[in-house]
């Protein structure tokens, strides 16, 4: 049974290969079937394997070595797969959500050209992500890591005729590659100092050899963190994600929910030992997470593009996961990853349905009142929004976020400030999420919209909505340990957070968090349903305008980077297009020419001048010979 492990990443990659080689010759139905089916098969295989884990999960590991990748000296990474509870959670989410997104895409993309190309890329995307999470060494992980970066590039720029899409795609790839490069350097450092890149062995050696807080551990962890930040679009490398909306909507769903951005979270969770050895870095993770979740949340609040709202919301939610990682709440981060995957995929697919119904209109203020035209979309979208806003008790988002907030308060590394940021973020989240819902689905119907899409697209919505609610079950306390099921399941891999103070006022925290999310919803209701004028008026004030602009442009990071990096780089490359070093050689050639002409002047053709030359030469010769 466990021998089937290799099938999980293999299936999508095989699908990719087939589609690339034969795609343009296959009929669309076959293409869609291959694309979706391979991911579906992966999902099935991963569920079969999950059965082996049972409920306990702890300590159970499935490994499979495929082949020796390369072997040079003491560096010999293998292609081998490593499935433990942590990667299982990831694999399940990736394959299942991935499958649903693929299924949805069949309908969504049916009128687009490049159909097989789309599915090929999507398959490769899922395949790369699976390689990433199943890798047993950091080199293979890096393979998947770069692979998802590539696929994001390909898919964001899928509609290649528009240069803006190409720009967004390159931006995504290059900015994440900044992080990737740091990660690569981190790998060099780890290998040079610890002599292996096998993750498990590496962690053991790090723990054994590096004292906590040692400089080298801090540097290594910081480099890995830089990689994670790039992929997960956290401050300060978050700017690519909002632009990444240029791709087709299912792509956004895949990037945000199942693949790509969560890679950073996975990396940190996977190498958490290293981060525990580097407390300053871990604190940095928490602070980055807190800052990101606030800044991105505020930006989400003012966006007009439906997908950009969701994009900023992703950045913000990943911020929560980072916050969790930063306070050592490893499994809480994973829990939130899981719930987020469900509801964010749901929201994106819902948004896709809306966009399709509005003939590719993205501006939410040109929508409105879609509730009645698209009931399925509306209700599922509502569940998504509720889960995102962490409305108490019924939504899975509530449980995962609550766990994070609780640990942000009580963990050894947590603090009131981190908790407060999380609570503020919860309020903001709820505010922008419901703003989105109200503006799009309530109010007057502004334009003609089509109705709900076909079953192949609504079915994933419904399933995801169900999952968004049901995922909360993972928070049920385990009878034996009293811990939540998900924590228990992951306990073999991820240690529990160290609690600073056992006397956590849990009920109080729960109350505050609930109030925050419900308050956000109510505020949105007031601003966008009851008194829409007031919100507009607020924006019209002078202060309001500039704040709005600041938030709308994502806190101006793009402009700063343009000024700081892109601008100077472009300027330098432009002025040096002809390579100033070449001037040195051109100069040498030029001087040769000058000397040629000067010497040419001595060739006058006059015999007496030539005789004079001989005389001069004689004087010089005799001078040197006799007097020197």
């Amino acid at each position, binding site marked *: 049974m466990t021998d089937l492990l290799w099938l999980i990443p293999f299936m999508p990659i095989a699908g990719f290969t087939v589609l690339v080689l034969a795609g343009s010759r296959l009929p669309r139905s076959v293409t869609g079937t291959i694309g979706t089916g391979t991911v579906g098969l992966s999902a099935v295989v991963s569920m079969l394997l999950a059965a082996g884990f049972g409920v306990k999960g702890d300590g159970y590991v499935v490994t499979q070595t495929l082949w020796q990748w390369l072997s040079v000296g003491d560096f010999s990474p293998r292609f081998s797969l490593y499935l433990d509870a942590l990667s299982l959670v990831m694999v399940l989410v990736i394959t299942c959500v991935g499958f649903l997104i693929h299924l949805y895409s069949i309908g969504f993309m049916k009128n687009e050209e490049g159909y097989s190309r789309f599915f090929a890329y999507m398959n490769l995307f899922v395949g790369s992500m699976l390689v990433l999470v199943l890798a047993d060494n950091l080199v293979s992980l890096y393979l998947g890591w770069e692979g998802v970066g590539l696929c994001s590039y390909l898919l964001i720029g899928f509609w290649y005729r528009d240069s803006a899409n190409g720009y967004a795609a390159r931006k995504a790839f290059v900015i994440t590659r900044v992080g990737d490069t740091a990660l690569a350097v981190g790998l060099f450092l780890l290998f040079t100092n610890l002599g292996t890149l096998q993750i498990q062995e590496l962690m053991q050696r790090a723990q054994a050899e590096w004292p906590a807080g040692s400089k080298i551990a801090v540097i290594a962890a910081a480099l890995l963190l830089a990689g994670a930040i790039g992929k997960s679009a956290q401050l300060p490398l978050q700017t690519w994600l909002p632009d990444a909306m240029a791709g087709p909507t299912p792509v956004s769903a895949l990037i945000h929910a199942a693949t790509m951005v969560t890679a950073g979270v996975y990396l940190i969770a996977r190498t958490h030992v290293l981060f525990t050895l580097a407390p300053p870095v871990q604190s940095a993770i928490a602070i980055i997470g807190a800052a990101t979740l606030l800044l991105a949340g505020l930006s989400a609040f003012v966006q007009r593009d439906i997908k950009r709202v969701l994009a900023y919301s992703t950045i913000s939610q990943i911020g929560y996961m980072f916050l969790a990682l930063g306070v050592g709440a490893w499994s809480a981060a994973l829990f939130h990853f899981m719930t987020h995957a469900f509801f964010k995929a749901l929201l994106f697919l819902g948004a896709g349905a809306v966009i399709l119904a509005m003939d590719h209109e993205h501006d939410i203020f040109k929508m409105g009142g879609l509730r009645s035209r698209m009931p399925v979309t509306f209700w599922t979208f509502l569940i998504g929004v509720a889960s995102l806003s962490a409305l108490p008790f019924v939504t899975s988002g509530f449980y995962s976020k609550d766990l994070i907030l609780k640990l942000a308060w009580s963990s050894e590394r947590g603090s009131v400030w981190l908790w407060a940021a999380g609570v503020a973020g919860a309020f903001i989240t709820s505010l922008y999420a419901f703003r989105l819902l109200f503006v799009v689905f309530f109010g007057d119907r502004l334009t003609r919209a089509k109705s709900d899409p076909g079953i192949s697209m609504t079915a994933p919505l419904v399933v995801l909505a169900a999952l968004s609610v049901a995922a909360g079950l993972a928070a049920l306390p385990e009878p034996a340990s009293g811990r939540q099921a998900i924590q228990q399941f992951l306990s073999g891999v991820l240690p529990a957070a160290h609690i600073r103070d056992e006397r956590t006022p849990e009920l109080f925290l729960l109350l505050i968090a609930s109030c925050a999310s419900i308050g956000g919803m109510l505020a949105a209701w007031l601003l966008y349903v009851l008194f829409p004028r007031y919100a507009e008026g607020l924006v019209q004030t002078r202060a309001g305008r500039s704040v709005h602009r600041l938030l709308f442009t994502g806190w101006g990071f793009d402009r700063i980077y343009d000024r700081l990096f892109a601008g100077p780089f472009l300027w330098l490359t432009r002025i040096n297009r002809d390579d100033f070093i*070449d001037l040195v050689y051109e100069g040498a050639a030029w001087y040769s020419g000058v000397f040629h002409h000067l010497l040419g002047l001595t060739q006058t053709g006059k015999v007496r001048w030539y005789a004079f030359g001989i005389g001069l030469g004689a004087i010089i010769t005799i001078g040197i010979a006799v007097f020197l």
Partner: protein
Amino acid sequence: MTVEWLILIPLIGGVLAWIGGRRSSLLPRLISVASLGAGLAMTASLWNASPPVAGRTAGQAWIAEFNTSWIPQLGIGFHLGLDGLSLLLVLLTFFLGIVGVLCSWNEIKERTGFFHLNLMLVLTGIVGVFLSLDLFLFYFFWELMLVPMYFLISIWGHEKRAYASVKFFIFTQLSGILMLLGILGLYFIHGRSTGIYTFDYTQLLGTRLTPGQSLWLMLGFAAAFAVKLPAVPFHSWLPDAHSEAPTAGSLILAGLLLKTGAYGFIRFLVPLFPDAVESVRLIGMVLSAAGILYGAALAFSQEDLKRLIAYTSISHMGFVMLGIFAWNELSLQGAVIQMVCHGFSTGALFVLAGILQARLHTREMSAMGGLWAVTPRMAGMGLFFGLASLGLPGLGNFIGEFLVLLGSYRVSGLVTAAAATGLIASALYSLRLMQRVFHGPKRDDLTMADIAVRETTILAVMAAVIVVIGLYPGPVLETSKPAVEGLIQKGNPSLTPPGRGPGAVKPGGESSGEMLR
């Protein structure tokens, strides 16, 4: 059948092709492909027949050797030797030679006989460089390949061919003579201290030199290799030569000629002057990193497609040089892989550029754009080789760059980190190339045929090689391993700091517990 036939086959093939060119224009192509194919097959058979790795002692790892006297008065012999390293490069030479003939099938319509003579002579010279174990012979071949290359550029090249070809020739010739000075200096110093005046590499190894002598002689050698490689700031012949040459010329320049520089570094420079190399190692590494970044920055700003690709070569060869100066097994093996893969990826990009130029009659990227819609197969290939060029994991170039950086980190973390930013830069130029050529809006009047079966086959085979090396580089690494290990022993021991980890203590061992101090 011994190793000297590897040199004779292309030579004879070239002459036959030339003669055949008088009858028809097809004959030279067929003869060339046939003889290169024969060479490839022969090399491959040597590869197969090579004794198992374990059976060979490091340092004396010649798979095949040939030695006969040539100019006895001066101690010059015709000494050839083939080890794993040269085997790989010779294989690459024959393979890219075939690609070169195939890709100029329709491009070269005039004087095909003479064209193929020159092509084959270049290849002869290159193979000779890879096999020579006599420094005079090495210099002989080193210079020999310039003339036919000059002809290829200056006769069949593009608009500025005269300028480009002369520049190429003068750069390489001047640096070549500086190397000759180094060779002669070594020859005399060795002769005076031992009484044996010889140019034989195996005997010159280990000549005792004072630090000053060693440094100056090393610089003479380094001049030639750095120009060929090319290392910044000696690179400025390259973009002109590459962009003005016909497709086959660019392919051979980028794919093979540059490798001769790297090969020289590995085979001659470091083993002959280990101490001097040790003393300038950091400078070399810094220059390499500078080359990586500078080449990439220049590539980014180019408007001419072939020029862009040419500058990427500088960047990629920077990795090779970094690997050489880091001088440990990881970095050297990385350099070897990078050499091979760069030959394929950049060669293929030049083939694509040649195809584009043949159809659009321009190399300006501003005249392109949106070609994906017109020629999806070509665009797909372009994407693939662009990605190989930016070092995507899973493709061969990644293995090369990763190993190089991994190895060089042991020597200098800072330089390695700087060089690693080249990965970002490579993404910038590769993706810009994609955008300008294949993506973006399509001009309305732009129509052209997609790549034909012949072209697709060439590119597909090259792509396949890159993928195979990317996922399973074992055969390549195994082949070069004994050679690399032998070479490392010839370097200064302080050049190769022991790696941390099991390998440093018990070679080949894996894991675990007792190593944890």
